[in-house]
């Protein structure tokens, strides 16, 4: 072949249209756009009853007696349950929660009784007719009260009200102190943020004739759920099937089993009928856990040249009346304190303390937004003390690819410096920073509006976190006779677009149009095991699992094609539904025909079905919390530009410039959506959102009083992706789910400081809080 022709062919081969990095609309988009997706609240089974829970509505009380007779007497009521009617098996991370509460309640959301009735109206009426006699106990509304001498004991087995303590350290903080030219110290208070999934929580429990339990559930972790729930409801796990209908948002809220779930199972068992229990918005606010509130005392230092020396962290967590995953979020905070930038000496102590407040669970970022807020606020303070630019001090201390952090995390790829430079460059950091710094000193300033710019970076796991002995995901792939593919994946979809990414990966590998790929991801009877949607793991782990299953199918297809076409498999490729000549790209045979040739062969008959269980090359942490818990790590930088009205205290975010090290973009449309959505949650966390308590009672359980970002809060966005091509990632990709939420609040608070000269250590930055502190600062300054 002439040289030019070879080059033409090569060019054609490399120019093969790749799906990776394209903008692929979400596969379930049309169904959702037409209103045809059937969420939990849309599902009904024949003879289904409606469940309803009676909550305690008082924060700390002994249950003296419960009279259910009036409820039972109501026509249409099929079951009324209290703790006396069920076996109480403790569950949750602290094993301190039960489905219904027996002797006492320890927070307002405690579940006391439950009803199943013919209609939701009857169920609601019945719940009101249940009469509970309580004897109120002294209420512990803060961690200080919980630790005071003679404080009421909330759970008898924890007399000091401190169920968990964690310690981590590397290096020697005393030495770090000695080596420091500057030292800064602050206490940061981070509030309760509610997930506010638009679809409220719910479940349907239905027993089959053979005693098997089918759960229609919104869980994010169907296989762990099956296991954990089985123990609580007294069934072998293999007797439980979990089916997930489309889920109206997760963000971590559905990572644990919650009391309403076993309660619904008990109601179904008591009535021998299917029971559905779906929360109202009020119940969703009151009876689902929040982001973990934290008080973080942080002290840190640097040498004169800006090199970080030490961090000393003390965290206090209000654990509320029971324990869900919130109590474990410091495990993630810890990794940011130890490993966002190089720092030789770190010590972290955490106390998790029972109170009679509501409790917290997982929420996007899992303790990292809190840690990043404290740390990145303090990095700016160190820079200021040293007269350094915040960008320069971050670049100076940033890790390089190939380093292992002091906590044992191996940075196979690390785009932190590139993220810092990309975001700063795109945001016009240098010019704006000096322009905005000038405005405060301008004595002739007419307008009450000042502008500021601030940045924050982030460090997070990029491919799951091996908290369990396995962090894997299974895939079953089958090809039909026509080139259609069904992927059964263990991974769950909660809106993030995993089904589209998985289909894209498989379509790319098999040279098939994406419309040929079906993804089944919501039925534990069909799909192989997966640990669940959390820790930004699905693209990486489920993606790798699907990719490997597809590679094996590809190998079989090419082998069959080579035999049929009497060619070497190495000379063949798959593209646009065809087997093609690898060098010329010329179609030789349709993939469907190759499959049918195998299936209906004259000599032997075969189907192409492959399986894969992908276990990432990560390891569980040791007892000192060290170890490479993720196969790769995610980095990013956000730059926020804000406007602060000095007269009203209103902070407006004008622009967020984000750069994320995502390894490689798989679905550009989807990944932009993850970043944009994370930014909005971050803005809400920083400026608007707080579920407020008073005396253990919730003050604002409505969207009227709990403010979320709306379209008019949407700032200008500039999102860039730094592609570091992680060697272990599918096509080089890392996870993105949580990262974009993490640095937002810190970046905004740093921008507010730049604008006003006042540093905020408490969120949210409501106009009231901002105005008060500005006044206070002026008072002191004048």
């Amino acid at each position: 072949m002439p040289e030019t022709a070879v080059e033409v062919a090569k060019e054609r081969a490399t120019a093969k249209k790749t799906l990776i990095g394209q903008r692929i609309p979400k596969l379930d988009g049309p169904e959702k756009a037409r209103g045809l997706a059937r969420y939990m609240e849309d599902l009904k089974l024949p003879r289904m009853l409606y469940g309803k829970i009676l909550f305690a509505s008082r924060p700390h009380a002994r249950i003296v007696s419960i009279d259910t007779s009036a409820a039972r007497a109501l026509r249409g009521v099929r079951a009324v349950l209290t703790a006396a009617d069920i076996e109480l098996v403790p569950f949750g991370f602290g094993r301190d929660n039960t489905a219904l509460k027996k002797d006492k309640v320890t927070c307002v959301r405690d579940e006391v009784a439950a009803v199943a009735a013919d209609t939701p109206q009857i169920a609601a009426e019945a719940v009101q007719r249940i009469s509970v006699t309580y004897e109120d106990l002294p209420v512990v509304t803060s961690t200080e009260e919980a630790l005071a001498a003679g404080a009421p004991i909330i759970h008898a087995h924890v007399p000091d009200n401190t169920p968990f303590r964690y310690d981590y350290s590397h290096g020697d903080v005393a030495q770090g102190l000695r080596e420091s030219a500057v030292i800064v110290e602050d206490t940061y208070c981070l509030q309760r943020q509610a997930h506010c999934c638009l679809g409220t929580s719910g479940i349907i429990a239905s027993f089959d004739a053979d005693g098997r339990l089918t759960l229609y559930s919104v869980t994010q972790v169907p296989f762990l759920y099956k296991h954990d729930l089985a123990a609580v409801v007294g069934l072998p796990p293999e007797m439980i099937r979990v089916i997930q209908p489309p889920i109206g948002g997760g963000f971590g809220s559905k990572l644990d089993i919650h009391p309403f779930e076993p309660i619904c199972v008990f109601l179904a068992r008591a009535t021998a009928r299917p029971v559905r229990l779906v929360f109202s918005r009020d119940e969703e606010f009151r009876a689902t856990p929040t982001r973990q509130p934290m008080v973080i005392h942080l002290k840190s230092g640097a040498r004169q040249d800006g090199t970080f020396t030490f961090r000393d962290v003390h965290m206090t967590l209000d654990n509320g009346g029971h324990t869900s995953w919130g109590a474990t979020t410091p495990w993630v905070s810890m990794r940011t304190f130890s490993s966002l930038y190089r720092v030789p000496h770190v010590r972290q102590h955490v106390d998790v303390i029972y109170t009679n407040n509501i409790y917290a669970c997982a929420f996007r970022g899992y303790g990292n937004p809190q840690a990043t807020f404290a740390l990145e606020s303090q990095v700016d303070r160190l820079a200021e003390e040293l007269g350094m630019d915040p960008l320069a001090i971050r670049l100076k201390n940033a890790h390089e690819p190939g380093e292992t952090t002091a906590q044992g995390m191996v940075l196979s790829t690390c785009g932190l410096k590139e993220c810092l430079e990309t975001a700063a460059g795109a945001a016009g950091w240098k010019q704006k920073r000096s322009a905005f710094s000038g405005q405060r000193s301008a004595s002739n300033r007419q307008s009450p509006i000042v502008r500021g710019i601030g940045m924050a970076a982030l460090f997070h796991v990029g491919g799951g976190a091996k908290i369990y002995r396995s962090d894997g995901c299974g895939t079953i792939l089958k090809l039909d006779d026509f080139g259609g593919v069904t992927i059964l994946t263990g991974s769950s979809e909660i809106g993030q677009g995993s089904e589209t990414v998985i289909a894209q990966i498989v379509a790319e590998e098999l040279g098939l149009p994406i419309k040929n790929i079906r993804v089944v991801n919501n039925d534990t009877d069909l799909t192989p095991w997966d640990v669940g949607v959390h820790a930004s793991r699905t693209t990486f782990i489920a993606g790798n699992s699907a990719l490997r299953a597809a590679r094996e199918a590809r190998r079989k297809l090419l082998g069959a094609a080579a035999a049929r076409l009497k060619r070497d498999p190495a000379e063949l490729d798959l593209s646009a539904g065809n087997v093609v000549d690898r060098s010329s790209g010329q179609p030789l045979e349709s993939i469907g025909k190759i499959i049918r040739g195998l299936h209906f062969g004259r000599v032997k008959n075969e189907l192409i079905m492959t399986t894969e269980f992908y276990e990432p090359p990560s390891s569980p942490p040791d007892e000192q919390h060290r170890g490479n818990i993720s196969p790769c790590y995610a980095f990013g930088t956000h730059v926020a530009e804000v406007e602060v009205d000095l007269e009203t205290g209103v902070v407006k975010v004008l622009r967020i410039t984000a750069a994320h090290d995502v390894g490689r973009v798989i679905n550009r449309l989807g990944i932009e959506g993850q970043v944009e959505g994370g930014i909005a949650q971050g803005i809400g966390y920083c400026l608007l959102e707080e579920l407020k308590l008073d005396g253990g009672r919730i003050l604002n359980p409505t969207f009227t009083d709990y403010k979320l970002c709306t379209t008019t809060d949407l700032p200008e966005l500039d999102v860039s992706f730094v592609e570091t091509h992680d060697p272990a990632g599918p096509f080089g990709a890392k996870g993105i789910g949580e990262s974009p939420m993490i640095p937002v609040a810190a970046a905004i608070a740093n921008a507010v400081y730049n604008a006003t000269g006042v540093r905020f250590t408490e969120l949210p930055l409501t106009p009231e809080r901002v105005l008060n502190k500005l006044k206070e600062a002026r008072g002191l300054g004048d």
Partner: protein
Amino acid sequence: MPNVPEKVELAFTVNGEAVRLAVAPGATLLEVLREDLELTGSKYGCGEGECGACAVLLDGQVVNSCLVLALECAGSQVLTIEGLSPTGQLHPIQQAFVEHGAIQCGFCTPGMIMATYALLEANPAPTEDDVKRALEGNLCRCTGYRKIVDAVLSLAQGGARHA
């Protein structure tokens, strides 16, 4: 039984079809659409008119159907998300939401699309500010709104002002 008042007859038009049924006097339009007519595309998000997931058109005006008593709709025309694609073909608004990545969990989507429909009927060439104001009553927890606003702007007459 608790005191349940007698049901009252209601006649109105839903997605172009005449409908006649007996409803409880206290039933909301959302309840009648979802429970009696099995039009579950309209979602319950809060029940107090704050989230917009239940938005439908009532005589051409966008309303939160959780705040409207069904009996108030006697003789009215109601258009729900199901009415936008009666033949199964996506309506251009639905198509734009899909193509622009304006849908993640999708729970807010029907309400967003109905609010968009009302906006474009009233103002076929909205600016970005118009779009933001028109959708201010519709909460979305997933997307951060950028792609929703882009989807709507792509439908604006006289060319999209893509931000």
